């Protein structure tokens, strides 16, 4: 099929013109450079909580062995309940605000805590968007993911510095 010269041009002329609007941060609009943040966030400090290996397939007994709990120490007790109690106890002690935003994990986020129990206290009490200290721990959610990053607001970041020390 042949087209006459200029046909495409005429077709384009009949369509209203379009413009692209885009946003990739305030600096892209102002044209001025922002004060560079090392974390990529202008608000708060991201902290990564990541298990070295997935827990899928592990039963509470095995998980407790990973934490370092000796089997004899909870003899006669329900192992799941015992694990939940340990997670709750750990969560209560964490120097974090009562609730924190959960954000997509990046390798650049610092991992302040590396012990399995603390990471479980975060993973089991997180939704896709938020971590809540008071949330009932869900072991199932720890089975499905191995990492979560929390964005700690500026007025709580001094607590992180104390942990690092």
């Amino acid at each position, binding site marked *: 099929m042949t087209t006459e010269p200029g046909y495409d041009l005429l077709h384009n002329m009949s369509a209203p013109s379009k*413009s692209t*609007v885009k946003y990739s941060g305030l600096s892209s609009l102002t044209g001025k450079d*922002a004060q560079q943040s090392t974390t990529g966030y202008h608000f708060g400090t991201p902290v990564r909580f990541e298990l070295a290996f997935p827990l899928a397939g592990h039963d509470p007994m095995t998980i407790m062995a990973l934490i370092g709990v000796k089997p004899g120490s909870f003899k006669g007790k329900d192992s799941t309940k015992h694990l939940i109690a340990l997670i709750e106890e750990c969560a209560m002690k964490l120097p974090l605000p009562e*609730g924190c*935003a959960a954000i997509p994990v990046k390798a650049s986020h610092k991992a302040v805590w590396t012990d399995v129990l603390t990471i479980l206290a975060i993973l089991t009490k997180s*939704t896709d*968007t938020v971590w*809540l200290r*008071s949330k009932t721990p869900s072991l199932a959610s720890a089975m499905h993911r191995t990492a979560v990053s929390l964005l700690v607001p*500026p007025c709580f970041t001094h607590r992180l510095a104390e942990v690092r020390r």
Partner: protein
Amino acid sequence: MNPAESKSTSDLSVPISKGWLERIGLIGLSSIEAPLLAALVTESPLLLIGAHGTAKSLLLTRAADALGLAFRHYNASLLNFDDLVGFPLPGKDGTLEYVRTPASIWGAGAVIFDEISRCRPDIQNKLFPIIHERRVQGIALKGLRFRWAAMNPPSTDDDENGYAGSEPLDAALADRFAFVVEMPRWEQFTPEQQLAIIRAEDSPVRPEDATYLCDLIGRSRQIAGTLEESFQKEIADYVRTVIALLAQANIALSPRRATFLFRSILAVTASSLAIDPNVEIPEAILLALRSGLPQRAQGIPIAEIKLLSAHREAIRSLRLTENDPLRAILCTANPLERFQLAIRALKLRRSDFSTVTADALAQLKPGAREAAILHLFETGAVGRLNAAVAAQAGESYQQIAMVPEFSESLHASSSRFAAWSRLKDLLSQLDPQEPRAHLHANALASLYARKQLHTPVDAEQAFLAFAETDGLLRAV
């Protein structure tokens, strides 16, 4: 007559009525019996709203008959002021007297203004003092106890089948009626009631039924007195709370209405108890609330769900202790103030904090809502929310704390493009050296990406709302 036919007729007959309305010949109105009785108990102005042929005029005429009142029935759509007061005549001492006619208002115990919504505005203005103060031209109408009116539902722009001549009542006139009661419609009657209405005969009110009504009024007054002595504070607290909660749902009521509601709740509850001692008090209070909203006369629809939830919350607040912070929060109409009070009230139960926060966030304007969500996370208050509300807030917060990148191709002539152009202008004024400016920009960009800003005005309002709310919350 065929025996089978005879049997079916007797089956369909209405059982011996115990309600005062059925006794005076009004069938199927038991749902509004208590508020109508309360209007008689308090002698407060009553407005009936209903479709044509729903027995509004009949009801008022029969009530006046039963109470043995000298009453005047005016068709307000045809009314001239002379019809009301008679003809003016200069007196010997220079005063103005009125030549009274059998139809003039002087000496009436009850007055009925029928078709009040079809009345000329100048006549409506002259009805104000009669309805509210029992005065005409400044002269007290001695002996006038009952002021009643009736109208068809006001026509609205959306209602194609409405009453063309029935105009929404002026807000000030509507607010003069303590009771605004909607008449039940034909389809709300049971088949037995419909048949009884079809076969009804117009017979005079029997003396024993009139006595029954007078006794019922007397009994209701006694109960109302006892209720006022015992529950005055609780009812006043309920009125205060329910008015604030209705205001939160954009149903604004005047201070006069607060007074009316206090009186009508006492009277409707007392009347309900006089009619049926087993009545549930919260149900009686809801009935009083439902019968005391002037918006119905103004053609403003009131969603039953809003009314019900305000009522339930106000009833619940009565069970709270004097110092419970939820009391103060429920009585605050401004959503941002409620949010701030809830943040400060650390003793608030998790479920209450979550409900108050979710409601406040839903009512805050775009921009203000994002600033409030930011505040929740900055202060750690998000940890006091239940998981569902916190997760929802977290979703919005992610868009503010992280850059909500987007790219969209738009026609340059579209209003969405114009909204972006204005937003871009506004955001360009922010200083990128200020960390807060990035949150401001991200919040507005995420609103735009979620298609919540449609016009340049939307963009301006949201920009200002964020700045104002963020400033306010950070100052605290």
